[in-house]
């Protein structure tokens, strides 16, 4: 059993506008869901109340329409807040209880015709964004981020002078710089991807994430606790290293 779980595919999560996460179930489904359950369990409250978009392109392609419904039921059974579906023809869901889920997030029309085009394009590439207003590509916050507050800045880096409290979160399109203690969550690279980093003066975080990778506090242990740390992507894994 243990061997099986070790070999389980890593479920990758892709940051989306605001805090929606995209999950893309893959075959074999039993293994994917067991890996997903493990991640949900390991990530504490990360998934609670977090909007989820299901990318069912692969499911439809390999398993056909029946598989789509099985997967949707599977996701629903996990009490996820499903807010949208990607990669399936809206006609397929017509008349089912998932009919009302938006299928055209980001203004992309996901009919069967455009679906083929989309699929041809490299999946990870961010869709062309409107050019950001010149000169404003960073956000400076010169006071502590309190528990329960959420700073979301998609257009670039976020700099915080003060601490990020336990139960607070900072989500940035680029890198996150914290001149203080990070005790809550920081998720960087919503737009910049794996080149984004997180810097903090004192690591006491609950969760850090860059691009599609994240780690909870139990992953890095005592050695880094309380130290000045940077978090970066290194060959597909999240690496935390101390400055001092």
């Amino acid at each position, binding site marked *: 059993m243990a061997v099986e779980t070790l070999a389980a595919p890593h479920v990758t999560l892709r940051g989306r506008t605001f805090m929606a996460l995209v999950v893309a179930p893959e075959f074999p489904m039993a293994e994917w869901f067991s890996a997903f359950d493990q991640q949900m369990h390991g990530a504490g409250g990360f998934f609670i109340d977090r909007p989820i978009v299901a990318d069912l392109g692969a499911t439809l392609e390999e398993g056909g329409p029946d598989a789509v419904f099985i997967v949707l039921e599977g996701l629903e059974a996990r009490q996820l807040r499903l807010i949208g579906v990607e990669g399936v023809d809206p006609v397929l869901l017509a008349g089912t209880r998932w009919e009302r889920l938006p299928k055209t997030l980001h203004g992309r029309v996901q009919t069967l015709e455009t679906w083929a085009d989309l699929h041809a394009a490299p999946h990870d590439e961010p869709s062309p964004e409107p050019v950001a207003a010149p000169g404003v590509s960073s956000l400076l916050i010169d006071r502590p*981020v*309190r*528990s*329960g*507050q959420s700073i979301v800045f998609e257009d670039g880096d976020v700099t915080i002078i003060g*601490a990020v*409290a336990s139960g*607070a979160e900072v989500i940035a399109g680029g890198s996150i710089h914290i001149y203080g*203690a990070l005790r809550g969550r920081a998720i960087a690279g919503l737009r910049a991807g794996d080149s984004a980093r997180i810097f903090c003066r004192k690591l006491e975080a609950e969760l850090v994430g860059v691009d599609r990778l994240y780690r909870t506090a139990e992953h890095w242990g005592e050695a880094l606790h309380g130290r000045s740390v940077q978090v970066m992507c290194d060959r597909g894994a999240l690496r935390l290293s101390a400055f001092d």
Partner: protein
Amino acid sequence: MSKVMVVTSGKGGVGKTTSSASLGAALAQAGQNVVLVDFDVGLRNLDLVMGAERRVVFDLVNVVQGDAKLPQALIRDKRVETLYLLPASQTRDKDALTEEGVGRVIAELRERFDWIVCDSPAGIEKGAQLAMRFADIAVVVTNPEVSSVRDSDRIIGMLDSKTLRAETGERLEKHLLLTRYDAARATKGEMMKVEDILEILAIPLLGIVAESPDVLTASNVGSPVTLHNPASAAARSYTDAARRLMGESVAINTPAEKRGLMSRLFGRKAAAA
């Protein structure tokens, strides 16, 4: 100029009501005109702590809804003549309060009193938000426990965003009042350290009140500890905190330091015997 002071915490059971009563009484004992307003509609306690539970006729909800005039609802304390209580309703819920109505009552109270002490209910919902809405000063009551500190942090965030002062860009004074501080547990390292709490919450310290049977005894006989047992350590902590609120500079004693000395003395005695 009158000051509206909210006593809040997020978490329940940390000592908001006790602290409201004790700070209010201490301010009144120093000659200030003080009214204590109980915002915990449906779960009122301040009248019990003040020993006025058998004198309640009208309450905050009656005044907010216009069923009673403010002077009819105000209860004057029998021990300190500049201390008044505006009780909450026990039979209604927090939806009975409206922002407009509360604002009107607070404005009326401002004309009569130097200090309007608003005892907030626990939680972060409507009742707590209305209690802090018109505040000029906030006293954040915190126990040296991680859960209490995190909830206080959340409340500070709300004070910075949901109060009238925050919305109009004015400064809202925030003070930390550490209560139920257990010196014995602190010396054993079983409790959060004062400096750690201050570092996390990043607001100035108003005072530290040690966990003490004096406080409980005073609450049970319906008297704030500053009136019931003015010589007790808890009463002195509240009196000092009240003086700091009035702008005096009074040094803060950490109970652990004092108790540390005591235990050292006792330790020596024990060794000698």
